[in-house]
C-alpha cells in the first residue's frame, strides 16, 4: 500500500494534494482571483501614467509576492484543519511530506504566475525586449519565493492564529530574495547591459538552501 521509497512517498503526497485541490476547485479559484485582483488594483493605481520600467519591475514582484502568499495557506495548514495530518504522519516520512508539499506549492505558484504575468505585461506595458533574461529571472525568483513560502508555512503550520503571523514571518525571510529579484528584473526590462546570470544563480541558490534547511528540520516540527 504505502510506498517505501522516500521519492515515491513525496510524489504520492504531491499527487494527493493536487487531486484534493482539483476536486475542491473553489479554493483554487479563490487563490487565482485574489492574485488577479491584487494585480488589477495595482493597474488601477498606475492607470495611464507613463511610469519608468524600474518601477514596473518592483510592482511585478509585489504582485508575485502576494500570489505566492495567497496560495501558501493551502499547503500545510489544510492538513491540520481537516485533521488528516495524523494519517500522513503514520504513513510517510516527514522529509517526503515536506518535499511533496513544497513541490505542490511550487506548481501552484507557477500556475498563478502563468496567468498573472501576461496580464501584467499587457496592462502595465512591461518591456519585453529581453524575453529570455526576463523569463529566467521570473522563474528563478518564483522558485526562491515559493521555497521560502513553503518553509514559512511549515514552521507555522502547527500553531493557531496563522493568518497574522504569516505575513510577519514571511516578509523578512522572503525580502532578501525579493530585492534581488527586483534588481534583476530591472536589468531585464531596461537597456542595461549587465548580465542577469549571477542574480539568477543567487536566486536559485536561495531556493535550494532554504528548501534543504527546511526539509532537514521538518521532522522536528512534524513529530508530536
Amino acid at each position: 500500500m504505502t510506498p517505501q521509497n522516500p521519492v515515491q512517498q513525496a510524489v504520492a503526497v504531491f499527487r494527493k494534494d493536487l487531486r484534493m485541490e482539483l476536486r475542491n476547485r473553489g479554493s483554487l479559484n479563490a487563490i487565482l482571483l485574489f492574485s488577479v485582483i491584487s494585480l488589477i488594483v495595482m493597474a488601477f493605481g498606475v492607470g495611464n501614467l507613463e511610469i519608468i520600467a524600474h518601477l514596473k519591475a518592483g510592482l511585478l514582484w509585489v504582485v508575485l509576492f502576494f500570489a505566492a502568499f495567497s496560495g501558501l495557506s493551502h499547503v500545510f495548514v489544510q492538513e491540520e484543519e481537516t485533521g488528516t495530518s495524523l494519517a500522513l504522519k503514520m504513513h510517510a516520512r516527514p522529509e517526503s511530506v515536506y518535499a511533496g508539499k513544497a513541490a505542490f506549492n511550487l506548481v501552484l505558484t507557477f500556475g498563478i504566475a502563468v496567468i498573472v504575468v501576461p496580464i501584467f505585461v499587457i496592462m502595465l506595458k512591461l518591456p519585453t525586449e529581453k524575453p529570455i533574461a526576463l523569463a529566467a529571472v521570473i522563474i528563478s525568483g518564483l522558485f526562491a519565493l515559493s521555497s521560502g513560502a513553503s518553509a514559512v508555512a511549515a514552521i507555522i503550520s502547527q500553531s493557531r492564529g496563522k493568518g497574522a503571523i504569516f505575513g510577519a514571518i514571511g516578509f523578512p525571510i522572503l525580502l532578501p530574495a525579493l530585492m534581488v529579484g527586483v534588481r534583476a528584473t530591472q536589468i531585464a526590462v531596461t537597456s542595461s547591459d549587465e548580465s542577469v546570470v549571477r542574480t539568477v544563480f543567487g536566486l536559485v541558490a536561495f531556493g535550494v538552501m532554504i528548501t534543504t534547511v527546511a526539509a532537514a528540520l521538518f521532522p522536528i516540527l512534524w513529530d508530536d
Partner: protein
Amino acid sequence: MAVGNAPNSQLNNVNSSIPGLWWKILTGIGMTLTILAVYLVVGPVLNKVGQPFYTLGGHGAKVIFFHVPCAWLGSQCYIIGACYAVSYLRARARGERFAMVEADLKNAVAMELGLLFSVLATITGMVFAKNEWGAYWNWDPRQTSILIIMFLFAAYVALRGIVADPDLRARQGAVYTLVAVVPGIFLYFILPRIVGDTMHAEPNKALIGRQISGNYMYTMYGLTLPSFIMLFVWMFQLRLRQMKLELRKSA
C-alpha cells in the same frame, strides 16, 4: 546579591555565574569612561594620510560610538541564537529535558536582545547618517540589511508570543532561527554584491586594515566595545533569570 544556590532546581544555576558585583562596577566605569572619552577626547577621524574618514562635525555624529557596538551586538545575537538553536536540537536528539529548556530560553533571550540592539543600531545609524551623509535614510545596503535583520528578530518574538505550548514553542523557535539563517547569509554575502556599493564599506575596511590613526580606534575598540559586551552579558543573564522564574511560576 549573593544568593544561596538552589539545591532542588536544576533550572536555577546562574546565580554563581559571571555578572557579580565586580562585573557591574567594571561595566559602569567602562561605559562612563566611554561617554567622557567620546565627548572630551575624540575629534575628527583621520586616516594615515591625514584625510578625514568621518568629520564627526555635528555633535550628533558622535553617536557612531554607540551605533557600531549596537550593530555589532545585534548581528552577533543572531549567531548566538543560531548556536543555541543547534544545541536545542542536539539536546532534543539526546532527550535531555533540562538542557532543552535551557537552550530554548537562551535562544529566545539572544533573539530578544538582538531585536533591542538592532532597533538601537537602526536609530543611532539614522542619526549618524543625517549628520554625516545628509539624510536619515539613504537606502544604503547596510541600512536595508539591518532593517531586515530587525524584522527577522521581531518575527521570532511574534512567533514565540502566539504559541502557548512550551514544547511546540521551543521547536518552532529553533527551526525558525535556523531557517532564517539562509536569508541572513543572503543579506551578508550576496545582496551587497548585487545591489551595489555601500557607504559603510570603505571606513570599515580601513578599521580592519588598521589604517585609521588617532583616538577613534582606541576609544572604539579599547573602551566602547568591551563595555558594551559586558553590558550585553549582564543583560543576557538578567533576562535569562527572569524567564526561568516565569517558567517556574507557571510550572
